[in-house]
């Protein structure tokens, strides 16, 4: 897993069938990447639902969050609509898991992304990363602390 201090590998992933997100376009903004195994986990303990509630906190720290899993854009669209998510989910779909692998958070056995968080600063450098046990939703306290540390710099 990529650690603090490393330059975040650039990527280009689809957020919708006709919209690609390039990490390098977000230089000048803080970025949060939340890798997770799959769409459609149970509602009230869902990690993405929690981040959805926290967008105003992320905005306050000039940060954009992206969810990343190996689900397809169509699956992501249905999931976003069902859960009323207001931030992009990226499809690490083809070649499968390539970005997850580049960040060192791909589970080869399950064929899914691990549950991992990265905070990337405005210069595109990883300033905080965290690997959570797959069954445990890591919450958001670590992300907030990392963003607050960036504000103090």
């Amino acid at each position, binding site marked *: 897993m990529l650690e603090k201090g490393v330059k975040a590998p650039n990527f280009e992933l689809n957020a919708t069938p006709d919209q690609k997100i390039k990490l390098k376009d977000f230089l000048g903004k803080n970025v949060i990447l939340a890798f997770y195994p799959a769409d459609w986990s149970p*509602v*009230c*303990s*869902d*990690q993405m*639902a*929690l981040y*959805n*509630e*926290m967008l105003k*906190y992320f905005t306050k720290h000039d940060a954009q969050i992206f969810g990343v899993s190996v689900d397809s854009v169509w699956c992501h669209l249905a999931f976003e609509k069902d*859960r*009323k*998510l*207001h931030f992009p989910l990226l499809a690490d779909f083809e070649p499968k898991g390539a970005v997850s692998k580049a960040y060192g958070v791909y589970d080869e056995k399950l064929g899914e992304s691990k549950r991992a968080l990265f905070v990337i600063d405005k210069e595109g450098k990883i300033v905080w990363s965290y690997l959570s046990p797959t069954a*445990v*939703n*890591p*919450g*958001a*306290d670590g992300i*907030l602390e990392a963003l607050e540390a960036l504000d103090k710099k």
Partner: protein
Amino acid sequence: MSTLKPEVNSKDHVQGSDSASITIVEFGDYQCPYCGDAYPIIKEIQDAFGNQIKFVFRNFPLQKSHELAYPAAIAAEAAALQDKFWEMHDAIYENQYRLTDQLFNELAEKIGLNTEQFQEDSLSDEIKQKVEDDFESGVRSGVNGTPSFYVNGTKFDGGATDLYQMLKESTE
């Protein structure tokens, strides 16, 4: 290990004895079915352990998932201004199956609130701030879903039934 931030304080709604050795804090959402399931179990825990337990409820409404979670939290906090937080808290969970935005006024009347005052208080900034402060305290404490429980300031990894089991074992 996630810990409760800030610690239990005078702004919290607390049930039980000051001298209790175990403090349980729940971060809950009034529309969350798992919180609804936890509600009677918490009552059982309080019955079983009596003075040993202090129980605190903080709001963690997942507004985007549950559109009535926030108005419900507001209703309970508005009731608190008339010293009836727990009456409203209980009434909402007991009527969770028929939650609508009309329900809160009905419940306010039922538990004997001054309903005019209740409606006015429901719009106040002070009440909104309380709910938002609770939510933020949850985020900082590492809440990752609802309900989340803290026992003596440390996050408990499990639901209400697991909590009951743990308490039984630890007091045996």
